[in-house]
């Protein structure tokens, strides 16, 4: 938030006689101290590279493609960052991503529920799955990796059983406006994504909830001793990531204009979202993370996949690059935070 300004302001004025450090350099240093800085540099550099390598990169259609590839990942990642900062993980969010549009479809077409209410209910069911994830993790002290591995498979199973593994059409009841608002238009995805990323960035950095999320992840015992109800925070964050997963699934169903049981790829989009969070500077150890970084991470991944396709590299090495990106950013993250801790202020 205001960190950038404060850090710059804290730099002491240079004594007379010595040339004072220039403003650009101070701004530069303050910028580099921000965790999102390195991934922003990568995102911009990739953009410049692909734009120079392919004329198609900056066309409107292609930018729409990138936006639509970035958005669902970034929306999930926004919630995933909170869960990761808590020191937990949610493997089930891709399954919820597939389930939510089906629930919307069942409610509208089999139970006559109005479409908007059906969307709200589908999100409520997503939140309930998040609650179950959090409850089992907190109350039974099952590691969330295991809890959500279990619920992920259950939810994938529910999707396949109830849909008979067949795709379904978007409900007829969805009007033109609803389709457009919820993803069947060029920029709907991106607008939702930016709103959610901005909201969750504020939630994490500027509210009590965010502060307590960091405290619970950074020092679980200490946070409890300070009177913070760690269980409630964790359950709340599991509910948020699941709700966002359901919402991103509904957006994607509207975009591709069909409700597919394989939407989200079982675990696929969840791992992409975790990758985006890690590339963006969120440590899986808990205690620190950034929603904006995760958004930029999602953007970098979308640029890579899209750009490599445009310049004619097969999509296959994408995974090699993804793996290297995860490792490099994780190592850089550990190294940079050690530098930051060493007190270079």
């Amino acid at each position, binding site marked *: 938030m205001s960190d950038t300004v404060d850090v710059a302001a*804290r730099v002491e004025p240079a004594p007379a006689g010595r040339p004072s450090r220039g403003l650009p350099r101070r701004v530069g240093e303050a910028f580099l101290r921000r965790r999102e800085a390195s991934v922003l540099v990568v995102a911009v550099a990739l953009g410049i590279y692909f734009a120079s390598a392919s004329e198609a990169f900056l066309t409107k259609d292609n930018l729409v493609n990138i936006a639509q590839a970035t958005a669902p990942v970034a929306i999930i990642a926004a919630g995933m960052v909170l869960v990761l900062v808590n020191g937990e993980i949610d493997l089930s969010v891709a399954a919820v991503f597939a389930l939510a549009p089906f629930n919307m479809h069942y409610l509208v077409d089999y139970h006559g529920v109005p479409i908007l209410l059906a969307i709200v209910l589908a999100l409520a069911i997503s939140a309930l799955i998040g609650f179950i994830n959090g409850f089992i993790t907190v109350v039974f002290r099952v590691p969330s990796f295991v809890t959500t591995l279990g619920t992920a498979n259950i939810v994938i199973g529910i999707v396949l059983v109830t849909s008979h593994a067949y795709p379904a059409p978007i409900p007829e009841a969805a009007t033109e406006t609803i389709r457009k608002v919820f993803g069947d238009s060029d920029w709907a995805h991106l607008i939702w994504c930016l709103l959610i990323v901005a909201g969750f960035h504020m939630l994490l950095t500027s509210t009590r909830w965010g502060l307590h999320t960091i405290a619970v992840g950074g020092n679980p015992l200490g946070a409890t001793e300070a009177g913070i109800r760690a269980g409630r925070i964790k359950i709340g964050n599991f509910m948020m990531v699941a709700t966002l997963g359901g919402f991103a699934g509904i957006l994607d169903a509207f975009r591709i204009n069909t409700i597919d049981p394989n939407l989200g790829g079982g675990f696929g989009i969840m791992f992409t979202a975790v990758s985006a969070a890690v590339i963006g500077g969120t440590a899986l150890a808990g205690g620190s993370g950034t929603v904006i970084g995760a958004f930029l991470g999602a953007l970098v991944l979308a640029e890579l996949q899209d750009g490599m396709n445009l310049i004619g590299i097969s999509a296959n090495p994408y995974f090699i690059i993804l793996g290297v990106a995860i490792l490099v950013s994780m190592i850089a993250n550990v190294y940079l935070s050690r530098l930051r801790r060493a007190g270079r*202020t």
Partner: protein
Amino acid sequence: MATLGGPGGQALRVEHVAKRFGGVTALADVNLRLDRGEVLGLIGDNGAGKSTLIKIICGFHQPDAGRIFVGGEEVVLKSVDHARTLGIGTVYQDLALVNELSVYHNMFLNRELVHWPLLSNRRMRRLARQHLEDMGVNIPSVEDEVAKLSGGQRQAIAVARSVYSDARILLLDEPLAAMGAKEGALILDLVRDLKARGDVSVIIIAHNYGQILEVCDRINLLQHGTITFDKPTSQTSVQELTDLVVAEYRAARTAKLRPGPSSNARPAPGS
């Protein structure tokens, strides 16, 4: 809500408190009183039950038996939050500070100032800076992450946090553990300042009692889950306390070597 008694009254009284964890008796029968404005040193060897007693007084654990009075009124402490509303503040051995957060966020942890829905960071920064200054705690910047600070600075922030939250009874669990002489002096000065204010009563838990003796008004020794010794500091000495602890150790050792009931060696409560 209980209020503390008048000047010279009792801030806290603990009667016949007991606590077991599974088969282990952590506290057998503890009676303790803390006068208003007093600094009480609670000493005892490792495993004597000091931390358990503190966690009961601060509401973290609930006792299996016994009564607790705050300012003369009996209370049942349901949670840390509840104890805090009664004016009981705790500085834990692990400090309960969050490394990843700034000094001022730690100062206000779980008592954040909010201009709904956002945190009032500017106000918290200003108040934290001012309060630390008032307490004579010197740190480079309240915006620094706590991870950057020294052990003494972290301890001082934890103490300042409790005092700031209007703690009238301050529990300091091993405040000098793993601290250099200079940093220890900082903490002891802080306690002295609190004593001079007169409205804060302090219990200092320590197993290295040599350092804390100088700031304590009275010393209690906790052995095997009960208070076995209670004297004003002026009537005891490091030597006497050391002898007591060593005598206990010898008695236990003798009892082990020569099995059979011994008049003053209680059965050891596990550990």
